[in-house]
Protein backbone atom coordinates (compact mmCIF):
# COMPACT_ATOMS: atom_id res chain seq x y z
CA UNK A 1 0.00 0.00 0.00
CA UNK A 2 1.32 3.44 -0.82
CA UNK A 3 2.27 5.80 1.95
CA UNK A 4 1.00 9.11 0.61
CA UNK A 5 -2.64 8.21 0.48
CA UNK A 6 -5.41 10.67 -0.17
CA UNK A 7 -7.51 9.43 2.70
CA UNK A 8 -7.11 8.87 6.39
CA UNK A 9 -5.57 5.68 7.55
CA UNK A 10 -6.96 3.71 10.38
CA UNK A 11 -4.23 1.47 11.66
CA UNK A 12 -5.59 -1.41 13.66
CA UNK A 13 -2.12 -2.83 13.93
CA UNK A 14 -2.71 -5.28 11.13
CA UNK A 15 0.29 -4.28 9.10
CA UNK A 16 2.41 -5.40 11.96
CA UNK A 17 0.50 -8.63 12.24
CA UNK A 18 1.18 -9.39 8.62
CA UNK A 19 4.90 -9.04 9.08
CA UNK A 20 5.06 -11.16 12.18
CA UNK A 21 2.76 -13.84 10.85
CA UNK A 22 5.03 -14.01 7.85
CA UNK A 23 7.88 -15.12 10.02
CA UNK A 24 5.79 -17.64 11.82
CA UNK A 25 5.32 -20.83 9.91
CA UNK A 26 1.92 -21.92 11.11
CA UNK A 27 0.23 -20.25 8.11
CA UNK A 28 -2.97 -19.71 10.02
CA UNK A 29 -4.45 -16.27 9.60
CA UNK A 30 -6.76 -16.62 12.53
CA UNK A 31 -5.94 -17.83 15.98
CA UNK A 32 -2.64 -17.24 17.59
CA UNK A 33 0.70 -18.84 17.14
CA UNK A 34 2.87 -19.23 20.20
CA UNK A 35 5.90 -17.37 18.83
CA UNK A 36 3.89 -14.24 18.04
CA UNK A 37 3.69 -11.74 20.86
CA UNK A 38 -0.01 -11.04 20.56
CA UNK A 39 -0.39 -8.41 23.23
CA UNK A 40 1.46 -5.75 21.30
CA UNK A 41 -0.85 -5.72 18.29
CA UNK A 42 -4.09 -5.27 20.08
CA UNK A 43 -5.06 -1.76 20.95
CA UNK A 44 -6.84 -1.26 24.20
CA UNK A 45 -10.31 0.25 23.78
CA UNK A 46 -9.00 3.57 25.07
CA UNK A 47 -6.12 3.64 22.64
CA UNK A 48 -8.40 2.72 19.80
CA UNK A 49 -10.84 5.45 20.74
CA UNK A 50 -7.99 7.90 20.73
CA UNK A 51 -6.77 6.74 17.34
CA UNK A 52 -10.24 6.79 15.86
CA UNK A 53 -10.92 10.31 17.04
CA UNK A 54 -7.57 11.39 15.70
CA UNK A 55 -8.30 9.88 12.35
CA UNK A 56 -11.71 11.39 12.02
CA UNK A 57 -11.27 14.92 13.31
CA UNK A 58 -7.50 15.13 13.70
CA UNK A 59 -6.15 18.49 14.60
CA UNK A 60 -9.52 20.07 15.27
CA UNK A 61 -9.63 18.61 18.75
CA UNK A 62 -6.57 20.59 19.77
CA UNK A 63 -8.33 23.82 18.91
CA UNK A 64 -10.55 25.54 21.31
CA UNK A 65 -13.84 27.41 21.24
CA UNK A 66 -14.33 29.47 18.11
CA UNK A 67 -11.48 27.87 16.26
CA UNK A 68 -13.05 24.49 16.37
CA UNK A 69 -15.87 25.70 14.22
CA UNK A 70 -14.41 28.49 12.15
CA UNK A 71 -10.77 27.65 11.69
CA UNK A 72 -11.44 24.61 9.55
CA UNK A 73 -10.93 24.20 5.86
CA UNK A 74 -13.76 22.03 4.80
CA UNK A 75 -15.79 21.53 1.67
CA UNK A 76 -18.97 19.58 1.45
CA UNK A 77 -17.32 16.36 0.46
CA UNK A 78 -14.89 16.33 3.32
CA UNK A 79 -17.60 17.31 5.76
CA UNK A 80 -19.63 14.40 4.55
CA UNK A 81 -16.61 12.16 4.79
CA UNK A 82 -16.00 13.09 8.35
CA UNK A 83 -19.59 12.50 9.27
CA UNK A 84 -19.47 9.07 7.72
CA UNK A 85 -16.17 8.48 9.40
CA UNK A 86 -17.54 9.03 12.85
CA UNK A 87 -20.57 6.89 12.06
CA UNK A 88 -18.39 4.12 10.83
CA UNK A 89 -16.15 4.28 13.80
CA UNK A 90 -19.06 4.36 16.17
CA UNK A 91 -20.88 1.48 14.62
CA UNK A 92 -18.27 -0.80 13.16
CA UNK A 93 -14.69 -0.40 14.09
CA UNK A 94 -15.07 0.23 17.80
CA UNK A 95 -17.30 -2.73 18.34
CA UNK A 96 -14.91 -5.03 16.55
CA UNK A 97 -11.94 -3.67 18.38
CA UNK A 98 -13.45 -3.60 21.84
CA UNK A 99 -14.83 -7.07 21.60
CA UNK A 100 -12.59 -9.65 23.14
CA UNK A 101 -13.90 -12.41 20.95
CA UNK A 102 -13.21 -10.74 17.59
CA UNK A 103 -10.50 -12.47 15.61
CA UNK A 104 -7.84 -11.02 13.37
CA UNK A 105 -10.11 -11.68 10.40
CA UNK A 106 -12.88 -9.34 11.38
CA UNK A 107 -10.34 -6.74 12.30
CA UNK A 108 -8.79 -7.08 8.90
CA UNK A 109 -12.24 -6.78 7.43
CA UNK A 110 -12.82 -3.57 9.36
CA UNK A 111 -9.47 -2.25 8.20
CA UNK A 112 -10.30 -3.05 4.57
CA UNK A 113 -13.76 -1.51 4.86
CA UNK A 114 -12.18 1.62 6.25
CA UNK A 115 -9.61 1.90 3.48
CA UNK A 116 -12.25 1.21 0.86
CA UNK A 117 -14.62 3.78 2.32
CA UNK A 118 -12.09 6.55 2.06
CA UNK A 119 -10.25 5.66 -1.12
CA UNK A 120 -10.32 8.20 -3.94
CA UNK A 121 -11.91 8.20 -7.37
CA UNK A 122 -10.37 5.44 -9.50
CA UNK A 123 -9.83 7.93 -12.32
CA UNK A 124 -7.41 9.91 -10.15
CA UNK A 125 -5.59 6.97 -8.60
CA UNK A 126 -1.96 6.22 -9.27
CA UNK A 127 -1.13 2.73 -10.45
CA UNK A 128 -0.02 1.88 -6.93
CA UNK A 129 -3.30 2.99 -5.47
CA UNK A 130 -5.19 1.01 -8.11
CA UNK A 131 -3.18 -2.04 -7.17
CA UNK A 132 -3.92 -1.36 -3.52
CA UNK A 133 -7.66 -1.20 -4.00
CA UNK A 134 -7.92 -4.37 -6.10
CA UNK A 135 -5.81 -6.23 -3.55
CA UNK A 136 -8.15 -5.07 -0.79
CA UNK A 137 -11.20 -6.08 -2.83
CA UNK A 138 -9.78 -9.52 -3.53
CA UNK A 139 -8.89 -10.02 0.13
CA UNK A 140 -12.28 -8.78 1.22
CA UNK A 141 -13.99 -11.30 -1.07
CA UNK A 142 -11.79 -14.03 0.34
CA UNK A 143 -12.64 -13.03 3.91
CA UNK A 144 -16.35 -12.96 3.19
CA UNK A 145 -16.72 -16.10 1.08
CA UNK A 146 -13.52 -18.12 1.56
CA UNK A 147 -13.18 -18.13 -2.21
CA UNK A 148 -10.57 -16.42 -4.33
CA UNK A 149 -11.15 -14.10 -7.23
CA UNK A 150 -8.62 -12.59 -9.58
CA UNK A 151 -9.07 -8.89 -10.22
CA UNK A 152 -6.90 -6.68 -12.38
CA UNK A 153 -6.55 -2.97 -12.91
CA UNK A 154 -4.97 -2.97 -16.36
CA UNK A 155 -4.78 0.46 -17.91
CA UNK A 156 -5.58 1.24 -21.52
CA UNK A 157 -2.89 0.12 -23.95
CA UNK A 158 -1.21 2.65 -26.21
CA UNK A 159 -2.34 3.06 -29.82
CA UNK A 160 -5.64 1.38 -29.08
CA UNK A 161 -9.12 2.75 -29.64
CA UNK A 162 -11.83 0.12 -29.50
CA UNK A 163 -14.55 -0.01 -32.10
CA UNK A 164 -17.42 -2.32 -32.92
CA UNK A 165 -19.38 -3.18 -36.02
CA UNK A 166 -22.68 -5.05 -36.25
CA UNK A 167 -23.82 -6.79 -39.41
CA UNK A 168 -27.60 -6.45 -39.62
CA UNK A 169 -27.89 -8.95 -42.45
CA UNK A 170 -26.16 -11.64 -40.44
CA UNK A 171 -27.91 -11.41 -37.06
CA UNK A 172 -30.56 -14.15 -36.75
CA UNK A 173 -31.81 -13.28 -33.29
CA UNK A 174 -30.50 -16.37 -31.48
CA UNK A 175 -29.51 -14.20 -28.47
CA UNK A 176 -26.37 -16.20 -27.66
CA UNK A 177 -24.66 -12.83 -27.18
CA UNK A 178 -27.13 -11.82 -24.47
CA UNK A 179 -26.62 -14.86 -22.28
CA UNK A 180 -22.85 -14.88 -22.83
CA UNK A 181 -22.78 -11.24 -21.69
CA UNK A 182 -24.76 -11.99 -18.52
CA UNK A 183 -22.47 -14.86 -17.60
CA UNK A 184 -19.29 -12.96 -18.37
CA UNK A 185 -20.24 -9.77 -16.58
CA UNK A 186 -21.85 -11.12 -13.39
CA UNK A 187 -25.13 -9.31 -13.92
CA UNK A 188 -27.89 -9.61 -11.36
CA UNK A 189 -29.80 -12.82 -11.93
CA UNK A 190 -32.84 -11.77 -9.89
CA UNK A 191 -33.77 -8.74 -11.96
CA UNK A 192 -32.38 -10.45 -15.09
CA UNK A 193 -30.37 -7.42 -16.03
CA UNK A 194 -29.04 -7.46 -19.56
CA UNK A 195 -26.80 -4.98 -21.34
CA UNK A 196 -27.62 -6.16 -24.86
CA UNK A 197 -31.03 -5.89 -26.47
CA UNK A 198 -31.82 -7.70 -29.71
CA UNK A 199 -34.67 -6.01 -31.53
CA UNK A 200 -36.91 -7.95 -33.85
CA UNK A 201 -38.08 -5.60 -36.57
CA UNK A 202 -40.53 -6.00 -39.42
CA UNK A 203 -39.09 -6.15 -42.90
CA UNK A 204 -39.92 -3.09 -44.94
CA UNK A 205 -40.59 -0.81 -42.00
CA UNK A 206 -37.05 0.19 -41.20
CA UNK A 207 -35.81 0.96 -37.70
CA UNK A 208 -38.89 1.46 -35.56
CA UNK A 209 -37.78 0.81 -32.04
CA UNK A 210 -41.20 1.51 -30.57
CA UNK A 211 -42.73 -1.18 -32.75
CA UNK A 212 -39.87 -3.64 -32.40
CA UNK A 213 -39.93 -6.54 -29.96
CA UNK A 214 -36.83 -7.03 -27.84
CA UNK A 215 -38.18 -9.91 -25.77
CA UNK A 216 -39.50 -12.39 -28.31
CA UNK A 217 -39.61 -16.12 -27.72
CA UNK A 218 -40.35 -18.13 -30.81
CA UNK A 219 -38.34 -19.83 -33.48
CA UNK A 220 -35.91 -17.43 -35.12
CA UNK A 221 -35.31 -15.98 -37.59
CA UNK A 222 -39.03 -15.33 -37.89
CA UNK A 223 -40.51 -14.93 -41.35
CA UNK A 224 -40.58 -11.31 -42.51
CA UNK A 225 -38.38 -9.96 -39.73
CA UNK A 226 -34.83 -8.81 -39.28
CA UNK A 227 -32.76 -8.46 -36.14
CA UNK A 228 -30.39 -5.86 -34.77
CA UNK A 229 -28.70 -5.42 -31.42
CA UNK A 230 -28.10 -2.39 -29.24
CA UNK A 231 -25.89 -1.95 -26.20
CA UNK A 232 -23.59 0.78 -24.89
CA UNK A 233 -22.00 2.36 -27.96
CA UNK A 234 -19.02 3.84 -26.11
CA UNK A 235 -19.55 7.26 -27.66
CA UNK A 236 -16.52 9.38 -28.30
CA UNK A 237 -18.54 12.34 -27.06
CA UNK A 238 -20.57 10.63 -24.36
CA UNK A 239 -23.47 12.64 -22.91
CA UNK A 240 -23.64 10.32 -19.90
CA UNK A 241 -20.16 11.40 -18.83
CA UNK A 242 -21.06 15.08 -19.16
CA UNK A 243 -23.99 14.87 -16.77
CA UNK A 244 -22.41 12.83 -13.99
CA UNK A 245 -22.32 15.15 -10.96
CA UNK A 246 -19.54 13.24 -9.20
CA UNK A 247 -17.40 12.19 -12.18
CA UNK A 248 -17.94 8.55 -11.43
CA UNK A 249 -18.06 7.77 -15.13
CA UNK A 250 -15.53 8.76 -17.77
CA UNK A 251 -13.96 7.83 -21.09
CA UNK A 252 -10.72 5.86 -20.89
CA UNK A 253 -7.78 6.35 -23.26
CA UNK A 254 -8.83 3.36 -25.35
CA UNK A 255 -12.31 4.80 -25.76
CA UNK A 256 -14.15 2.67 -23.21
CA UNK A 257 -16.76 4.54 -21.21
CA UNK A 258 -16.47 3.11 -17.72
CA UNK A 259 -17.92 3.55 -14.24
CA UNK A 260 -16.26 3.49 -10.84
CA UNK A 261 -18.95 1.56 -8.97
CA UNK A 262 -17.51 2.77 -5.68
CA UNK A 263 -17.75 6.43 -6.64
CA UNK A 264 -21.21 6.31 -8.21
CA UNK A 265 -23.93 7.88 -6.05
CA UNK A 266 -26.79 6.37 -8.02
CA UNK A 267 -28.49 9.56 -9.22
CA UNK A 268 -29.21 8.00 -12.64
CA UNK A 269 -28.58 11.24 -14.53
CA UNK A 270 -26.45 9.23 -16.96
CA UNK A 271 -29.30 6.84 -17.56
CA UNK A 272 -31.50 9.76 -18.52
CA UNK A 273 -28.82 11.35 -20.66
CA UNK A 274 -28.02 8.25 -22.72
CA UNK A 275 -29.97 8.37 -26.00
CA UNK A 276 -29.40 4.65 -26.62
CA UNK A 277 -30.62 2.97 -23.41
CA UNK A 278 -27.09 1.81 -22.74
CA UNK A 279 -27.11 2.08 -18.97
CA UNK A 280 -28.62 -0.10 -16.24
CA UNK A 281 -29.35 0.60 -12.59
CA UNK A 282 -29.17 -1.81 -9.67
CA UNK A 283 -32.51 -1.36 -7.91
CA UNK A 284 -31.69 -4.23 -5.61
CA UNK A 285 -28.54 -5.93 -4.43
CA UNK A 286 -27.20 -7.83 -7.44
CA UNK A 287 -26.96 -11.53 -6.79
CA UNK A 288 -25.10 -14.20 -8.68
CA UNK A 289 -24.94 -17.82 -7.49
CA UNK A 290 -21.46 -18.51 -6.17
CA UNK A 291 -20.73 -21.22 -8.74
CA UNK A 292 -21.72 -18.94 -11.60
CA UNK A 293 -19.54 -15.98 -10.60
CA UNK A 294 -16.96 -15.15 -13.25
CA UNK A 295 -13.84 -14.80 -11.17
CA UNK A 296 -11.68 -13.15 -13.82
CA UNK A 297 -12.55 -9.59 -13.06
CA UNK A 298 -11.48 -6.04 -13.73
CA UNK A 299 -12.05 -3.13 -11.38
CA UNK A 300 -13.90 -1.22 -14.08
CA UNK A 301 -15.61 -4.26 -15.53
CA UNK A 302 -17.37 -7.29 -14.18
CA UNK A 303 -16.51 -7.14 -10.49
CA UNK A 304 -19.49 -7.49 -8.22
CA UNK A 305 -21.64 -4.37 -8.02
CA UNK A 306 -23.75 -3.21 -5.15
CA UNK A 307 -27.27 -1.89 -4.73
CA UNK A 308 -27.89 1.61 -6.00
CA UNK A 309 -25.13 2.00 -8.58
CA UNK A 310 -25.13 2.21 -12.35
CA UNK A 311 -23.54 -0.33 -14.62
CA UNK A 312 -23.27 -0.98 -18.32
CA UNK A 313 -21.41 -2.73 -21.11
CA UNK A 314 -17.67 -2.12 -20.92
CA UNK A 315 -16.81 -4.02 -24.12
CA UNK A 316 -15.71 -6.64 -21.55
CA UNK A 317 -12.75 -4.56 -20.37
CA UNK A 318 -11.46 -7.59 -18.43
CA UNK A 319 -11.13 -9.48 -21.72
CA UNK A 320 -10.37 -6.81 -24.30
CA UNK A 321 -7.45 -5.32 -22.40
CA UNK A 322 -5.89 -8.77 -22.58
CA UNK A 323 -6.31 -8.91 -26.36
CA UNK A 324 -9.43 -11.07 -26.35
CA UNK A 325 -12.74 -10.27 -28.02
CA UNK A 326 -15.75 -9.29 -25.90
CA UNK A 327 -17.94 -12.21 -24.80
CA UNK A 328 -20.75 -11.24 -27.21
CA UNK A 329 -18.40 -11.29 -30.19
CA UNK A 330 -17.08 -14.67 -29.20
CA UNK A 331 -20.54 -16.11 -28.57
CA UNK A 332 -22.21 -14.89 -31.77
CA UNK A 333 -22.85 -17.97 -33.92
CA UNK A 334 -23.36 -16.00 -37.13
CA UNK A 335 -20.33 -13.72 -37.10
CA UNK A 336 -22.51 -10.59 -37.05
CA UNK A 337 -20.25 -8.88 -34.53
CA UNK A 338 -16.86 -7.42 -35.45
CA UNK A 339 -14.56 -5.92 -32.85
CA UNK A 340 -11.14 -4.37 -33.10
CA UNK A 341 -8.67 -1.54 -32.84
CA UNK A 342 -9.74 1.53 -34.80
CA UNK A 343 -6.22 2.97 -34.81
CA UNK A 344 -4.67 -0.05 -36.48
CA UNK A 345 -4.97 0.43 -40.27
CA UNK A 346 -4.61 -3.31 -40.76
CA UNK A 347 -7.41 -4.30 -38.38
CA UNK A 348 -10.60 -5.90 -39.67
CA UNK A 349 -12.80 -3.24 -38.08
CA UNK A 350 -11.01 -0.65 -40.19
CA UNK A 351 -11.62 -2.70 -43.31
CA UNK A 352 -15.31 -2.79 -42.47
CA UNK A 353 -15.46 0.97 -41.94
CA UNK A 354 -13.60 1.65 -45.18
CA UNK A 355 -15.28 -0.91 -47.42
CA UNK A 356 -18.83 -1.41 -46.21
CA UNK A 357 -21.64 1.12 -46.08
CA UNK A 358 -21.76 1.84 -42.39
CA UNK A 359 -24.02 4.01 -40.28
CA UNK A 360 -24.65 4.70 -36.63
CA UNK A 361 -27.77 5.34 -34.59
CA UNK A 362 -28.85 8.96 -34.01
CA UNK A 363 -25.72 10.31 -35.66
CA UNK A 364 -27.19 13.80 -35.69
CA UNK A 365 -26.87 14.04 -31.91
CA UNK A 366 -23.10 14.32 -32.27
CA UNK A 367 -22.46 11.64 -29.70
CA UNK A 368 -20.02 9.89 -32.07
CA UNK A 369 -20.74 6.30 -31.12
CA UNK A 370 -17.93 3.84 -31.78
CA UNK A 371 -20.49 1.23 -32.83
CA UNK A 372 -21.33 0.97 -36.51
CA UNK A 373 -24.01 -0.99 -38.32
CA UNK A 374 -23.56 -2.40 -41.78
CA UNK A 375 -25.11 -4.84 -44.21
CA UNK A 376 -23.66 -7.42 -46.55
Amino acid at each position, binding site marked *: MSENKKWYSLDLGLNKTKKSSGTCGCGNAEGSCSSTPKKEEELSPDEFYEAAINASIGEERHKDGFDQVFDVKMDRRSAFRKLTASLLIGAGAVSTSCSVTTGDKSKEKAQIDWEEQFKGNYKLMTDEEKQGTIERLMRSYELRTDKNISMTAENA*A*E*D*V*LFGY*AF*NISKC*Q*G*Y*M*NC*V*SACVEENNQDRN*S*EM*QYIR*IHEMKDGEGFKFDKAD*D*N*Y*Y*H*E*VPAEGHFYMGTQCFHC*DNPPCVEVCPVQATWKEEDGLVVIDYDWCVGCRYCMAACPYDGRRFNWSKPEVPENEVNKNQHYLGNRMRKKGVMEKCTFCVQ*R*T*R*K*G*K*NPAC*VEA*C*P*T*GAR*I*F*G*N*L*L*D*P*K*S*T*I*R*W*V*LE*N*KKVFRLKEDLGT*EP*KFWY*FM*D
Partner: protein
Amino acid sequence: MKNRTLIYYVVLLLGISLFSCKEKDGYHSISDKIEGESRPYHGNLSSEDLLMDTELIQITEGEFTFLIPERKGQIKSFACIECHSKPVSQMKGTTAQKAHWDITLNHANSDAMDCATCHNGEDMNSLNTLTGKNIDFNLSYKLCAQCHSSQFEDWKGGAHGKKVAGWAPPRASNTCVNCHNPHSPSFETRWPVQYNTQKGIERKEGLDH
Protein backbone atom coordinates in the same frame (compact mmCIF):
# COMPACT_ATOMS: atom_id res chain seq x y z
CA MET B 1 -7.49 54.33 -39.96
CA LYS B 2 -8.94 51.96 -42.56
CA ASN B 3 -5.85 49.80 -42.37
CA ARG B 4 -6.22 49.50 -38.63
CA THR B 5 -9.78 48.28 -38.86
CA LEU B 6 -8.69 45.77 -41.47
CA ILE B 7 -5.91 44.47 -39.22
CA TYR B 8 -8.34 44.37 -36.35
CA TYR B 9 -10.77 42.25 -38.35
CA VAL B 10 -8.03 39.92 -39.56
CA VAL B 11 -6.81 39.37 -36.02
CA LEU B 12 -10.36 38.79 -34.81
CA LEU B 13 -11.00 36.30 -37.60
CA LEU B 14 -7.78 34.46 -36.81
CA GLY B 15 -8.69 34.38 -33.17
CA ILE B 16 -12.11 32.99 -33.84
CA SER B 17 -10.82 30.33 -36.19
CA LEU B 18 -8.18 29.34 -33.66
CA PHE B 19 -10.42 29.02 -30.66
CA SER B 20 -13.95 28.36 -31.80
CA CYS B 21 -13.27 25.20 -33.79
CA LYS B 22 -11.23 23.47 -31.16
CA GLU B 23 -12.87 20.36 -29.86
CA LYS B 24 -11.75 18.83 -26.62
CA ASP B 25 -9.09 16.60 -28.09
CA GLY B 26 -8.64 18.61 -31.28
CA TYR B 27 -10.86 16.49 -33.54
CA HIS B 28 -14.23 17.27 -35.03
CA SER B 29 -15.40 13.73 -35.37
CA ILE B 30 -14.41 10.17 -34.64
CA SER B 31 -13.35 9.62 -38.25
CA ASP B 32 -10.97 12.59 -37.97
CA LYS B 33 -9.63 11.11 -34.77
CA ILE B 34 -9.13 7.70 -36.33
CA GLU B 35 -7.34 9.29 -39.25
CA GLY B 36 -5.25 11.56 -37.06
CA GLU B 37 -4.11 9.00 -34.56
CA SER B 38 -3.83 5.99 -36.82
CA ARG B 39 -0.59 4.19 -36.77
CA PRO B 40 0.26 0.53 -37.02
CA TYR B 41 -0.27 -1.16 -33.71
CA HIS B 42 2.98 -2.13 -32.05
CA GLY B 43 1.68 -2.80 -28.56
CA ASN B 44 2.50 -5.61 -26.19
CA LEU B 45 -0.93 -7.14 -26.52
CA SER B 46 -1.02 -10.09 -28.83
CA SER B 47 -3.33 -13.02 -29.41
CA GLU B 48 -0.43 -15.41 -29.76
CA ASP B 49 -0.98 -16.91 -26.31
CA LEU B 50 -4.67 -17.29 -27.00
CA LEU B 51 -3.94 -19.07 -30.26
CA MET B 52 -1.53 -21.56 -28.72
CA ASP B 53 -4.09 -24.36 -28.54
CA THR B 54 -5.23 -24.06 -32.14
CA GLU B 55 -3.28 -25.51 -35.00
CA LEU B 56 -3.08 -22.79 -37.61
CA ILE B 57 -1.76 -22.30 -41.09
CA GLN B 58 -0.86 -19.03 -42.75
CA ILE B 59 -2.46 -18.03 -46.02
CA THR B 60 -2.03 -15.07 -48.33
CA GLU B 61 -4.93 -13.94 -50.47
CA GLY B 62 -4.36 -10.73 -52.40
CA GLU B 63 -3.11 -8.10 -49.98
CA PHE B 64 -4.19 -10.05 -46.91
CA THR B 65 -2.03 -12.47 -44.99
CA PHE B 66 -3.56 -14.17 -41.99
CA LEU B 67 -3.98 -17.47 -40.17
CA ILE B 68 -6.75 -20.02 -40.54
CA PRO B 69 -7.31 -23.23 -38.57
CA GLU B 70 -5.76 -26.36 -39.97
CA ARG B 71 -8.50 -28.69 -41.25
CA LYS B 72 -7.16 -32.11 -42.12
CA GLY B 73 -6.39 -33.00 -38.50
CA GLN B 74 -10.02 -32.22 -37.59
CA ILE B 75 -11.61 -34.56 -40.13
CA LYS B 76 -12.10 -37.87 -38.37
CA SER B 77 -11.89 -40.10 -41.43
CA PHE B 78 -8.90 -38.37 -43.00
CA ALA B 79 -6.87 -39.60 -44.87
CA CYS B 80 -9.58 -40.60 -47.30
CA ILE B 81 -7.39 -42.99 -49.26
CA GLU B 82 -7.31 -45.30 -46.29
CA CYS B 83 -10.65 -46.55 -47.61
CA HIS B 84 -10.72 -44.98 -51.06
CA SER B 85 -7.81 -46.96 -52.36
CA LYS B 86 -9.46 -47.17 -55.77
CA PRO B 87 -11.30 -44.49 -57.77
CA VAL B 88 -14.96 -44.12 -56.75
CA SER B 89 -16.19 -45.50 -60.07
CA GLN B 90 -14.52 -48.80 -59.31
CA MET B 91 -15.81 -48.97 -55.73
CA LYS B 92 -19.46 -48.47 -56.72
CA GLY B 93 -21.63 -51.53 -56.71
CA THR B 94 -19.25 -53.57 -54.60
CA THR B 95 -20.56 -55.39 -51.56
CA ALA B 96 -18.49 -53.29 -49.20
CA GLN B 97 -20.31 -51.60 -46.35
CA LYS B 98 -21.95 -48.29 -47.17
CA ALA B 99 -20.15 -45.24 -45.86
CA HIS B 100 -21.08 -41.55 -45.45
CA TRP B 101 -24.73 -42.49 -45.02
CA ASP B 102 -25.16 -39.51 -42.71
CA ILE B 103 -24.35 -36.99 -45.43
CA THR B 104 -27.14 -35.55 -47.50
CA LEU B 105 -26.25 -32.78 -49.85
CA ASN B 106 -28.33 -29.70 -49.12
CA HIS B 107 -26.27 -27.17 -51.02
CA ALA B 108 -27.59 -25.43 -54.11
CA ASN B 109 -29.80 -27.57 -56.36
CA SER B 110 -28.84 -30.87 -57.87
CA ASP B 111 -28.48 -29.32 -61.33
CA ALA B 112 -25.74 -27.07 -60.07
CA MET B 113 -23.96 -29.28 -57.61
CA ASP B 114 -23.26 -32.86 -56.77
CA CYS B 115 -20.49 -34.62 -54.84
CA ALA B 116 -18.09 -34.38 -57.76
CA THR B 117 -18.34 -30.58 -57.83
CA CYS B 118 -15.95 -30.49 -54.89
CA HIS B 119 -14.63 -34.03 -54.47
CA ASN B 120 -12.29 -35.71 -56.89
CA GLY B 121 -13.38 -39.29 -57.48
CA GLU B 122 -9.95 -40.17 -58.79
CA ASP B 123 -8.04 -38.70 -55.84
CA MET B 124 -10.21 -38.55 -52.73
CA ASN B 125 -7.46 -37.02 -50.61
CA SER B 126 -7.87 -33.63 -52.19
CA LEU B 127 -10.67 -31.44 -53.36
CA ASN B 128 -11.43 -30.46 -56.88
CA THR B 129 -12.03 -27.05 -58.48
CA LEU B 130 -14.58 -26.47 -61.22
CA THR B 131 -11.77 -26.70 -63.73
CA GLY B 132 -10.48 -29.93 -62.27
CA LYS B 133 -7.47 -28.67 -60.36
CA ASN B 134 -6.60 -30.22 -57.00
CA ILE B 135 -7.11 -28.20 -53.82
CA ASP B 136 -5.78 -29.22 -50.43
CA PHE B 137 -8.43 -29.89 -47.76
CA ASN B 138 -6.78 -27.22 -45.61
CA LEU B 139 -7.54 -24.59 -48.26
CA SER B 140 -11.16 -25.54 -48.85
CA TYR B 141 -12.17 -21.85 -48.81
CA LYS B 142 -10.82 -21.66 -52.35
CA LEU B 143 -13.64 -23.94 -53.45
CA CYS B 144 -16.31 -21.83 -51.77
CA ALA B 145 -14.84 -18.69 -53.31
CA GLN B 146 -15.52 -20.04 -56.78
CA CYS B 147 -19.22 -19.18 -56.43
CA HIS B 148 -19.46 -17.08 -53.27
CA SER B 149 -17.17 -14.32 -54.45
CA SER B 150 -18.71 -11.42 -52.53
CA GLN B 151 -18.62 -13.42 -49.29
CA PHE B 152 -15.01 -14.27 -50.08
CA GLU B 153 -14.14 -10.56 -50.43
CA ASP B 154 -15.83 -9.79 -47.10
CA TRP B 155 -14.12 -12.72 -45.41
CA LYS B 156 -10.69 -11.65 -46.62
CA GLY B 157 -11.24 -8.15 -45.31
CA GLY B 158 -12.76 -9.39 -42.07
CA ALA B 159 -16.41 -8.38 -42.43
CA HIS B 160 -17.65 -11.95 -42.86
CA GLY B 161 -16.94 -14.71 -40.39
CA LYS B 162 -15.38 -14.92 -36.97
CA LYS B 163 -11.95 -14.50 -35.51
CA VAL B 164 -10.36 -17.40 -33.69
CA ALA B 165 -9.39 -15.69 -30.44
CA GLY B 166 -9.05 -11.96 -30.04
CA TRP B 167 -8.79 -8.60 -31.73
CA ALA B 168 -5.05 -8.23 -31.16
CA PRO B 169 -2.65 -9.20 -33.93
CA PRO B 170 -1.78 -11.67 -35.38
CA ARG B 171 -5.09 -12.07 -37.15
CA ALA B 172 -6.53 -15.58 -37.12
CA SER B 173 -9.88 -16.03 -38.84
CA ASN B 174 -12.11 -19.06 -38.92
CA THR B 175 -12.43 -20.47 -42.38
CA CYS B 176 -15.75 -21.24 -44.14
CA VAL B 177 -16.12 -24.81 -42.90
CA ASN B 178 -15.56 -23.85 -39.26
CA CYS B 179 -19.06 -22.31 -39.17
CA HIS B 180 -20.81 -23.76 -42.24
CA ASN B 181 -21.31 -27.44 -42.85
CA PRO B 182 -20.13 -27.69 -46.47
CA HIS B 183 -22.84 -30.25 -47.26
CA SER B 184 -25.60 -28.14 -45.71
CA PRO B 185 -24.21 -24.65 -45.35
CA SER B 186 -27.19 -22.53 -44.32
CA PHE B 187 -28.07 -21.91 -40.66
CA GLU B 188 -31.16 -23.51 -39.27
CA THR B 189 -33.99 -21.80 -37.47
CA ARG B 190 -34.04 -22.45 -33.74
CA TRP B 191 -35.32 -20.99 -30.51
CA PRO B 192 -33.45 -18.10 -28.89
CA VAL B 193 -31.22 -19.27 -26.05
CA GLN B 194 -33.01 -17.20 -23.44
CA TYR B 195 -36.16 -15.32 -22.54
CA ASN B 196 -36.21 -12.49 -20.04
CA THR B 197 -39.07 -13.28 -17.68
CA GLN B 198 -38.64 -10.08 -15.66
CA LYS B 199 -38.93 -7.95 -18.76
CA GLY B 200 -41.98 -9.98 -19.71
CA ILE B 201 -43.65 -9.27 -16.38
CA GLU B 202 -42.80 -5.57 -16.49
CA ARG B 203 -44.19 -5.22 -19.99
CA LYS B 204 -47.36 -7.01 -19.02
CA GLU B 205 -47.90 -4.78 -16.02
CA GLY B 206 -47.20 -1.72 -18.11
CA LEU B 207 -44.20 -0.69 -16.04
CA ASP B 208 -42.14 -0.31 -19.15
CA HIS B 209 -42.90 2.06 -21.99
